[in-house]
C-alpha cells in the first residue's frame, strides 16, 4: 500500500487462541511460519522465528502444566511480521512467574528484530523483518 498514509497499519491480521499445552503451542509456530512464508521469508528466517516463538511461549506459560489459554495475534506488515502473545492463566497457576533469563534475552536478540516480555501483563511481543 505505497500510497496509503496509514502504511504502518497491518495489511492483514490473524488471531489464534490455544490451550497452554506444548502440543498446541506448536500451532503458534506453524501459524507463524505459514505467514512468514507468505511474506517471502527465507528458510533461516523462518527457523529463527520458530525458535523465538518457542522461547517466548515457554517464558510465558512454561511446560504447560498451567491450564489456561494462550492468545496470539499475528500482524502482517509489508516485509515484517509482528506477533503478540497473551496468557490467560486460570486460578490453578503453579505460581511460576514468567521470566526471561539473561541468556534467553541474548538468544532472542539474535533471532528477531524486536522483542519484549511484560511479566505483569503476561504478554510478549516480537517483530521479525525480512532481510
Amino acid at each position, binding site marked *: 500500500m505505497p500510497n496509503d498514509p496509514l502504511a504502518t497499519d497491518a495489511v492483514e491480521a490473524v488471531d489464534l487462541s490455544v490451550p497452554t499445552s*506444548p502440543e498446541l503451542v*506448536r500451532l503458534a*509456530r*506453524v501459524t507463524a*511460519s*505459514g505467514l*512468514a*512464508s507468505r511474506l*517471502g*521469508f*527465507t*528458510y*533461516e*528466517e*523462518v*527457523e529463527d522465528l*520458530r*525458535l523465538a516463538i*518457542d*522461547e517466548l511461549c*515457554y517464558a510465558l506459560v*512454561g*511446560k504447560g502444566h498451567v491450564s489456561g489459554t494462550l492468545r496470539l495475534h499475528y500482524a502482517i506488515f509489508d516485509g515484517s511480521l509482528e506477533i503478540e502473545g497473551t496468557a490467560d492463566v486460570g486460578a490453578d497457576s503453579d505460581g*511460576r512467574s514468567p521470566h526471561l*533469563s*539473561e*541468556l*534467553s534475552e*541474548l*538468544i532472542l*536478540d*539474535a533471532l528477531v528484530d524486536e522483542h519484549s516480555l511484560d511479566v505483569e501483563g503476561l504478554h510478549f511481543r516480537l517483530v521479525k523483518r525480512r532481510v
Partner: protein
Amino acid sequence: MTFDPAQREELRQKFVAFAETRSPLLRGELVTAHLGLAEYLARRFNNRGEPLDDLVQVASVGLLKAVDRFDPVRGVEFSTYATHTIVGELKRHFRDKGWAVRAPRRMQELYLRLGKIIANLSQEIGRSPTIAELATEAQVSEEEVLEALEAGQAYRFASLDAPSPGDDEGDAMSSRLGVEDNQMEGAEHRATLSPLLSTLPARERRILQLRFFDGLTQSEIATQLGISQMHVSRLLARSLAQLRQAADA
C-alpha cells in the same frame, strides 16, 4: 505364533535349563524358536519411515534381551514377556531415531529431501532459500514444506542425546570438534554468563556460541563445521529446549 503343547513343554524345559546353565547353545535355540514373534512385531511398526530389515534387527535385539532376562519360575508366558520387551525396544528405536512415531512417513521423507535441497540451493543462489523456492524445487506446496519442517523438528522433546534422523554426521562432527578444542576457550569464557550453558555438550555449546554470541548464520555455521544447515537448525532447537528445561528445573 503358536506352539503345540509338546513344543511348549520342550521350550519351557529349555528356559529352565538356560536359567541354570546360561549355555550359549540353548540361548541360540531359544532365540531362533521365537524369531517369528520378533518379525511379527517388527511388521507392526513398518511404514513409519524405517526399513523393515532394520526393525527386524531391532526386534531381534529385544528378543535376545527377553531370552536373557526371562525368569521361567515366575509363571509368566515367555511370549507375553518377550512382546513387552520387543515392543519397548522398537519404540526406543524410533525415539532414538528422533521421529515421533506419529510423523507420517511422507513428511519424514520430504524433510530429509529438503535437507539436501536447502544445502544445494543455498550454494547455488548464495543465500538462504525462501520457503517458496524450496517448494518449487521439491515440487510440493509451501504448506507441505512447512509441515515437513515442523514434523522434522518433532524430535525437539525426544531424547537429547539421540542422533538426529537420517544423519551420519554426528560422529564426523564430534571428531572435528575434538580437534578444535583450543577454540572452545571463548565458549568457556562465555559460559560464565550462565552456568546453564555448561549443561550442554561441547559441540552444542560451540554452535550456540557461533550463532548467538558471534552472530554467524546457520549456513555459515554449517560450512564451518562441515555439517548440513538442517542439522545445525535441529541442534539449536534441541539445545534451546534443553536450556529452558534446565532453567526451570
